[in-house]
């Protein structure tokens, strides 16, 4: 363990330090990336690619959400507002500008992200002044304001919603373009998450999570840090909202601004592991196909409400830290048991558990790394 290398905010656990583990992780990500890129070529069935598009959309959203809420500890339950904003940006602008269907429409995707970020600034300024639980409530309230505004303004089509251009691509491979658009959004969201995590900024966020007042007392500009993270997370969510709008062809206020969206992305992050990088991805990949399956199988979508709620309860109560940390802990503990006992003695920590958790520094909301 070379103490002189700057520890990245997130890789300071014994398990991730060994060069073998690091490389293994890198390889895993590469393979995963390759798989994602090759996916539409491997699975050409449009039902499957359609599910894949939605899954990517959620993977992006939950990654972005986690980069704010997971690292700062402030649970935002109103990100659907930004999703909808991105969606409506694309829909309204393409309608007003009479943009024809085709690749050109994809230029509105980053625009959707930008508009969502701009919307996030005043929202963040207001919401982030409050204490943590008031914060959750105010994000919910603001979300409802967005939904109501979309339903009532005529430029957003009121309750009949808004249409998006229909591209004239062939049926086979139609979904693929949306797939790749969503994949690009995911890549951006992941890049942003990694950037945050490894930077000083990310460290400050994590410190805020542990003890905001102390961080402030040490000179961390807490409001600024929180606000920036909040706005950045809105960006990716806004982008995929735009992709969603284009993909669906028609958006309505209650779907573009869906309260269930917020709980879903939170659940995905919790299931996979709040504060980790791979956790939310895993959570999304498990849950979204499940949700799509329910929507397709049972015409009444209400059963999945029950399944979601039940699943959430199970996760929160039985596996509060999520899958990824639980697994990495397990693996790491086994590795420690096999390792040199003298090493532990030399550290003089005796009974202290050396390996606290996996690659993630920011453990879940409840757990403090075990130990002395």
């Amino acid at each position: 363990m070379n103490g002189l290398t700057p520890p990245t905010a997130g890789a300071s656990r014994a398990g991730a330090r060994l060069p073998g583990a690091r490389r293994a992780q890198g390889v895993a990500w590469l393979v995963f990336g390759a798989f994602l890129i090759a996916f539409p070529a491997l699975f050409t069935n449009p039902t499957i690619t359609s599910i894949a598009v939605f899954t990517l959309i959620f993977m992006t959203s939950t990654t972005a959400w986690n980069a704010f809420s997971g690292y700062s500890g402030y649970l935002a339950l109103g990100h659907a507002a930004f999703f909808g904003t991105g969606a409506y940006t694309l829909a309204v602008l393409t309608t007003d500008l009479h943009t024809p269907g085709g690749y050109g429409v994809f230029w509105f995707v980053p625009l959707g992200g930008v508009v969502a970020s701009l919307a996030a600034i005043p929202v963040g300024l207001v919401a982030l002044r409050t204490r943590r639980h008031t914060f959750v409530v105010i994000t919910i309230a603001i979300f409802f304001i967005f939904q109501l505004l979309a339903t009532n303004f005529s430029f957003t089509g009121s309750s009949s919603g808004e249409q998006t251009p229909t591209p004239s691509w062939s049926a086979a491979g139609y979904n693929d373009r949306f797939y790749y658009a969503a994949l690009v959004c995911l890549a951006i969201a992941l890049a942003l998450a990694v950037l945050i995590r490894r930077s000083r900024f990310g460290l400050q966020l994590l410190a805020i999570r542990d003890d905001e007042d102390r961080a402030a007392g040490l000179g961390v500009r807490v409001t600024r840090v929180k606000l920036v993270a909040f706005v950045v997370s809105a960006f990716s969510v806004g982008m995929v909202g735009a992709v969603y709008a284009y993909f669906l062809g028609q958006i309505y206020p209650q779907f573009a601004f869906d309260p269930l969206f917020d709980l879903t992305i939170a659940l995905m992050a919790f299931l996979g592991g709040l504060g980790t990088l791979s956790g939310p991805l895993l959570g999304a990949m498990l849950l979204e196909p499940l949700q799509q399956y329910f929507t397709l199988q049972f015409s009444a979508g209400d059963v999945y409400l029950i399944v979601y709620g039940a699943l959430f309860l199970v996760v929160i109560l039985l596996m509060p830290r999520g899958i990824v940390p639980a697994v990495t802990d397990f693996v790491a503990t086994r590795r420690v048991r096999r390792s040199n006992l003298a090493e532990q003695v030399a550290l003089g920590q005796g009974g202290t558990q050396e390996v606290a958790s996996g690659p993630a520094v920011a453990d879940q909301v409840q757990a403090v790394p075990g130990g002395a």
Partner: protein
Amino acid sequence: MGTQLIHAVVDGVLTGGVYALMAAGLTLIFGVMDMINIAQGILVVLGAYLSYVLSVHLGLDLFVGLAVTIPALFVVGVVVEWTFMRRLRERERTAMSILVTYAVALIIEGVLSIVFGVNYVQLHAWYVDRSVYVLGFYLPYIYLFGFALAAVLLGALYAMLYRTRFGASVRASLQDRTAARLVGIDVARVSTICFGLGVAVTAAGGMVFGATNAFNPNTGYDLISRLLTIVILGGLGSIGGALGAAVLMLVLEDVVSVVWSPVWSAVVFFAVLVVVLSIRPVGLFGRSMARAQ
């Protein structure tokens, strides 16, 4: 316009009383347990549906039916608390409670949708359909009865809090759970009962709400967002604050509806919350926090 305005204010006050009852339950739960019960909205709807079943299938009068629905919801509250809320660890329990109760709310909504479908229903009784003429407009009796009910129940709540020994335990727990434990108060039991009470009031609120509004399982979202707004404005944990905020907000909403448009009155509801919290992050009546030391 004048009559309409008076009508709006009276309406607001009367409905405000009922909302105050439901919000009081929510704020009590927070005060004693530091938990936010997102399911409060859907529980109101559940209460309304229960009243509906009793009224339509058993022919029971709505108020009589309360004798069944209030205890029933009390039990529901106790079961939820005992099964789920207890398991939440002390650290971050508020955030966790939000997620857990949100999940519970989803389950209840799913069940209600399956059992009752998504069609709107409304409760009926003679006092719902008939009105009294007062101050230049017609006022359905249910508004008056509902307000009276809310007043009675809130009064009972106050009496319980300030006159009984149990109430003293509740107030102690409201102030400081650890200290309460140290003097021998069974805080866990107090919490469970308070959660139950907080939910039980939704039965009464649900009945009145269901009689004055058409509802379906989706109505829960609108309700909880309003209740949360009221509770935050009134200051989390303050029952008096919830009362004041409820009446204030409902009057405001009704007045805006008359003066401007019904479409925007809902937006105003939330906008007020946002504005107030920007200026005073602890709500209208909340206590300001000292910087943590």
